[in-house]
């Protein structure tokens, strides 16, 4: 694949490369994360999980994927 077809994004503080026209849903699927157990922020805005297939990732996007862990 040509490098020009790739964009850099940041997921949970880590840099990643994905192809252009890659949707947020494709990212979640690629990372094998169960959608019903997480929340997603794209550039500090909370994303409605029902709409993630319609969101195309752009160069420099910052994505946070969170879930519940043990806490007091």
């Amino acid at each position, binding site marked *: 694949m040509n490098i020009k077809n790739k964009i850099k994004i940041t997921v949970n*503080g*880590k840099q990643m490369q994905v192809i252009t026209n890659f949707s947020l849903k494709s990212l979640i699927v690629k990372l094998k*994360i169960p959608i019903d157990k997480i*929340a997603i922020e794209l550039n500090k805005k909370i994303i409605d999980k029902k709409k993630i297939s319609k969101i195309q990732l752009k160069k420099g996007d910052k994505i946070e*994927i*969170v*879930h*519940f*862990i043990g806490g*007091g």
Partner: protein
Amino acid sequence: MIDKKFKIANKTFKSRLIVGTGKYKNFNECANAVKASGADIVTVAVRRVNITNKNKARLMDYLDPKKITYLPNTAGCFSAEEAIRTLRLAREIGGWKLVKLEVLGDKRNLFPEMIETLRSTELLTKEGFKVMVYCNDDPLMAKRLENVGAVAIMPLAAPIGSGLGIQNKINIKIIRKQTKLPLIIDAGIGQASDASIAMELGCDGVLINTAIAKAQNPIQMAEAMRLAVISGRKSFLSGRIDRNLFGSASTTKEGII
């Protein structure tokens, strides 16, 4: 005496003990301790998913949120903005509106930053959250939290994880007298008797994490806390005897030989 129901934001809960899910050796131990505690509310935290280790165990696989009430917290937040961001994310995971607000002001003693806590309580309440608030044991602040819409007042007994027990019983009693909201001791419990004392002061519940999770036998300590909360509550409802300076024999003098 039949006890009144333990209600928070119009929802009834069976147990007056709420337990945290942090600091356990693993999720299995955590789930077993929660079961032994009898709690039907557990506090949970919001953190990043580990995207490099996809096989890492998940809390939700061990504690089913359909069977037990998850109470998302704002652990590690030092401002209203951080707390609100965290709880909005928690709500997005699965619709949680009942939340535990905890805005800290000092990394060492983990005391709550009450100005930010008050501001966050007001903002979150306006957004439709039902906010249970970790706070200091100041009756005036407790009143202000109530005025801006808190659904439960949760004063500390002592610093989080300190295990020092209830340091200021008088303030807890004063807060009890002034509020009809659920009053829940949050933080500082060290042993079962501390939980009983909290209940004997008239609190509606107790929230415990470290005292169970870091006990040498967490499962047994969870059971001890369950019994201590029930015991303390019954003791409170039963109406204790007056304190007397002198003794009063339990056996009658009648028929003495």
